[in-house]
């Protein structure tokens, strides 16, 4: 089981979703991807689409930077 990190705070639509999807595609069962993302559309939709695609969203926690969140996703 490995843990990976992805920062999409500087990305814009649709690359926020594209980069997350590509990273999620690399996970093996039990692996975790931590996605650092901004509030708004990425925060609303990245966890939702990960769940819809069969991944488990373990936590959504705001970081020390206001408006930036860490989403922990497990395959």
């Amino acid at each position: 089981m490995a843990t990976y990190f992805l920062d999409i705070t500087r990305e814009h639509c649709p690359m926020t979703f594209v980069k997350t999807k590509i990273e999620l595609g690399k996970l093996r069962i039990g692996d975790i991807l931590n996605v650092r993302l901004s509030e708004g559309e990425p925060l609303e939709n990245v966890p939702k689409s990960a769940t819809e695609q069969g991944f488990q969203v373990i936590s959504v926690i705001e970081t020390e930077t206001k408006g930036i969140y860490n989403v922990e996703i497990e395959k």
Partner: protein
Amino acid sequence: MSEEKQSKKLSIIAFSGDFDKLTAVFTLATGAASVGYEVNLFFTFWGLDAIKIKQGRSPVGKGFLPKVFGIFMGGLKSAPVSRLNFLGVSPKIFRYLMRKKNVATLEELVEAAKTLGVNFYACEMAMHILGLQKSDFIPEVKDVLGVATFLNLSEGGQTLFI
């Protein structure tokens, strides 16, 4: 849930070869594919320019007139913007702005679409008119289709014409 996943489908008829409209096509395609949609892109008429192997101005096509068209229209790299093209200066400005503002360029979106397994199809009739063959297109083009097959593919999902 797997049934729900399968019913999510977006099919886009990419008619335009314009830079801005192709950007819309590939933004929607990659965004939808990223959130679990099956995506079908059906390239027809000027849209076929986007999937040519030769991305610049080149005499692609069989016969004299198709070759002339090929030179004038070019491929992805020579796509004009639909308004205020200024003889091809505007697409260069757009590319510069997109890079500067950290927005994916058209080329990056096309590469992402390939990586995400977006389905590329070419229109048989438009290819016939423009003297183009499947071998003139990037290998990601899965098949050459007509209307009936496209309707079958797009059935049960959302369809857009751009």
